[in-house]
C-alpha cells in the first residue's frame, strides 16, 4: 500500500511537476545573505523584464544541505521547483535519476560549449546533455593575508611550502597568530584541498581525490599532506574550534592573524570592512599551487517539465549565462564568471587575478574540482573524507593512522 502510493506519486512526477502558474519560474536557492540575494535580484528583474514571474523559494543552511533536503521532499511530492541552485555531484546524481531537463537547444544557440571551461562542463552535462546553467566559479586554494602584518615582519608573499613555513614561524615568533582558522569540517577540508595539491601536485590530487585510487590515498604523499595539516594545526590559535569562517577572516582583517586559507568568498568580508586589495590585504594562491585552481561552481539545474524545456527555463538559463549577469553577479559575490570571455573591467584586483588564473588553469589542464566543496567526488565519499580530515586536525589520529582511516573510509563510502 505504502509503496504503491509512493510509486504512484513518482509516476505522477513527470506529469505534474509544473508549478501552478506556467508563466513563473520557481527557484530554490540558498543565497539569502545581503549581497548574494541582492545579486540574484538582478536575475529576477531581468526575467521580469521578459514577462516571467519569479517565485522565490529560499532555504538557507549548511551550505545548501538544507535546500537539498527540501528538494527531495519537493520532488517526492511531485512538485519539483523549476530551477534549483546546485553543486557538483548533486547535479550529476539528479541528472542520472532522469529528473533534469535537456538544455542542449539553448546551449547550442548561445555557444556554451566554447566559453565554459571543460572541467566545469563535466558538472553541467549528463550523457552529453546540458542540464544546468553555471552561475560562477569559486576557487578554493586562496590565501588571504594582512599586508601590514606581513610587512611589519618582513615577509614576502610565499610561493612554496618552505617559504610558507618560514613565514608562519616568523609570525609565531613575533607573537602574532600565524593562521586564522575556523574549526569546522568543511573549512578543514578546504585547507586540505590546497595542502594536498601542494604536497603531491596535480596528478596526485587527481588520482587521490577524483579517481579515488586506493594507492594514492594510502601513499606517503598523503601522509606528507597530513603532516602539513598538523603543522597548520600547530599554528592556529587555541580557540579555533567551531569558529565561523568569517570570524576567522575578521582576525586577518584586524591584524590578529597573518593568513587565512579560504575560498574567494572571503574577499567580501575584507571589502565590507573597507579594505582595499593590494593595499590592506593580499590574495594569492596557496604556496605550491600557484598554477592550479581548485574550484566549485554554483549552478542552476533545470528540473524536467514533462519532457520538454519550458520557455521560462530556457529564458532563465540564457539570462544566467549572459555576460552582463555573469559580470554583475560575480563582482558582488567575489567569485569569477563561469564563462571565460567576460570582461574583467568591473572586477577588483583579486577578481581580475582570479579570472586570469581560471582561464590559464583551464587551458593548461590545471583546473580541478574541489574535494572540500563536492566537485571531486560524490557526497558520500566527500563526507567520509571530512570525517578523517577533521578527526586528524582535532588530534584524534596521527598522520599515519589518518592515511589508513582515509583509505578504509573511502572504501566503505563507495
Amino acid at each position, binding site marked *: 500500500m*505504502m509503496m504503491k*502510493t509512493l510509486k504512484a506519486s513518482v509516476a505522477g512526477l513527470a506529469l505534474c511537476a509544473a508549478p501552478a502558474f506556467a508563466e513563473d519560474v520557481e527557484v530554490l536557492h540558498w543565497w539569502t545573505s545581503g549581497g548574494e*540575494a541582492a545579486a540574484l535580484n538582478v536575475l529576477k528583474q531581468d526575467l521580469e523584464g521578459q514577462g516571467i514571474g519569479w517565485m522565490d523559494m529560499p*532555504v*538557507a543552511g549548511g551550505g545548501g544541505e*538544507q535546500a537539498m533536503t527540501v528538494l527531495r521532499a*519537493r520532488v517526492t511530492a511531485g512538485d519539483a521547483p523549476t530551477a534549483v541552485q546546485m553543486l557538483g555531484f548533486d547535479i550529476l546524481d539528479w541528472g542520472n535519476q532522469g529528473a533534469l531537463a535537456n538544455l542542449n537547444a539553448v546551449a547550442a544557440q548561445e555557444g556554451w560549449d566554447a566559453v565554459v571551461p571543460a572541467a566545469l562542463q563535466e558538472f553541467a552535462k549528463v550523457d552529453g546533455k546540458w542540464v544546468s546553467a553555471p552561475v560562477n566559479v569559486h576557487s578554493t586554494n586562496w590565501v588571504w593575508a594582512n599586508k601590514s602584518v606581513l610587512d611589519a615582519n618582513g615577509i614576502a608573499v610565499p610561493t612554496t611550502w618552505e617559504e610558507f613555513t618560514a613565514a608562519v614561524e616568523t609570525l609565531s615568533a613575533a607573537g602574532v597568530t600565524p593562521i586564522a582558522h575556523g574549526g569546522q569540517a568543511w573549512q578543514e577540508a578546504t585547507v586540505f584541498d590546497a595542502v594536498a595539491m601542494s604536497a603531491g601536485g596535480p596528478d596526485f590530487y587527481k588520482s587521490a581525490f577524483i579517481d579515488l585510487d586506493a594507492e594514492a590515498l594510502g601513499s606517503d604523499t598523503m601522509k606528507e599532506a597530513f603532516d602539513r595539516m598538523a603543522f597548520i594545526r600547530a599554528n592556529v590559535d587555541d580557540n579555533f574550534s567551531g569558529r565561523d569562517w568569517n570570524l576567522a577572516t575578521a582576525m586577518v582583517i584586524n591584524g590578529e592573524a597573518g593568513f587565512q586559507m579560504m*575560498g574567494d568568498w572571503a574577499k*567580501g568580508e575584507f571589502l565590507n570592512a573597507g579594505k582595499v586589495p593590494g593595499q590592506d590585504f593580499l590574495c594569492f594562491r596557496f604556496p605550491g599551487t600557484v598554477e592550479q585552481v581548485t574550484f566549485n561552481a554554483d549552478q542552476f539545474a533545470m528540473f524536467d517539465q514533462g519532457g520538454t524545456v519550458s520557455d521560462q527555463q530556457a529564458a532563465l538559463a540564457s539570462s544566467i549565462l549572459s555576460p552582463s549577469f555573469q559580470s554583475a553577479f560575480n563582482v558582488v*559575490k567575489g567569485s569569477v564568471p563561469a564563462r571565460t570571455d567576460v570582461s574583467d573591467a568591473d572586477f577588483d584586483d583579486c577578481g581580475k587575478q582570479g579570472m586570469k588564473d581560471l582561464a590559464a588553469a583551464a587551458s593548461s589542464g590545471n583546473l580541478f574540482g574541489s574535494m572540500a566543496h563536492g566537485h571531486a567526488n560524490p557526497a558520500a565519499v566527500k563526507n567520509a573524507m571530512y570525517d578523517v580530515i577533521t578527526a586528524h586536525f582535532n588530534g584524534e589520529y596521527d598522520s599515519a593512522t589518518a592515511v589508513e582511516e582515509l583509505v578504509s573510509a573511502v572504501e566503505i563510502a563507495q
Partner: protein
Amino acid sequence: MSVASQDSGMRQGRVARVFIYLVLLLFGLFYLLPLYVMGVNSFKPLSEITGGGMMALPEVWTVEPWLKAWSTAQIGVEPTGLRPYFWNSISMVVPAVAISTVLGALNGYVLTKWRFRGDTILFGLMLFACFIPFQIVLIPMAAVLGTLGLAGTTAGLVLVHLVYGIGFSTLYFRNYYAVFPTELVRAAQIDGAGFFRIFWRILLPSSGPISVVCIIWQFTNIWNDFLFGASFASGGGAPMTVALNNLVQSSTGVKEYNVHFAGAILAALPTLLVYIVAGRYFVRGLMAGSVKG
C-alpha cells in the same frame, strides 16, 4: 477538580530563607543570560559586536537591527524582512493547535470514559508515536502530501503538525480526564445524555487548565518547527522559522549578528507572550492533570 493552591511550605529560619532566595536568584540569572546576550547585542551596531565585548552594554544604542530584521532584511531575493512570514506562521499554527487540541480532548474522553477492549494498547501505540524521529518521515510524508495534492500548501502543513501533535495532546487530556469522577458521567448517561452532550456539558467546562497546557505545548512545538516548514511549505508560504533561518544562516555572506539576534527575539515573541500570559494557568493545568496518575 479544584485543588487548593496551597504551598506545602515549611517553617524556616531567616538564614534559610535568604539562602533560598539566593539560589532562586542565581538560577534566574542563569536562565536569563542567553536572552540578555541576545537582547544587548541586538541593540549594538555590527562594528561594536565584531570588536568584542559580548556582555557589554551598547556604547551606541540603535534600533536599526530590529527595523532591519522586521522589514528590510534580505530573506530571499527580496528585502522583505520577517514581516510577511509572521502571518504564514499564524495561519498554520492556529488551525493546527485548535484541531489537535480538540481531537486530543475527544480522544482523552473516549479513552477514559468510554473504555473498550484494547483501548490501553491503542493509547500505548499513540504515545509511542510521539517518539518517532521527524527526519525519517520527511520523504514518505512528501509522497503522501503529493498524492493528496497538499504539497506546498498551508493545509498540508497543518495536517503534518496535526498528525505528530496528536499523541501528546491525547496524553495530556487522557491523564487529566482519568482523575475526573466517572460517576458524574454515568449519572448523566442514566439521565439519557448522549456521548457528545456529556462531553460538552460535563467534561469540557472543567477542561480549562489542561487545555492551556496542551495549547502551550502544541503552540510552542509547531511555532518553532523548522524541518516540516522548510520541506512542505511553498517559498512564499514559509513559516517564520524558515525565514529566520534564511536570515541567520548564510554560507558565504556577511553575518549581521545584531540583526540575527533581533530577528530571533521577534520570531520568539508570540511563544514568549503565550508563556507569560498563560504561564500562571500552566502550572495550575499541569497540577490538575498531567502529573497525576
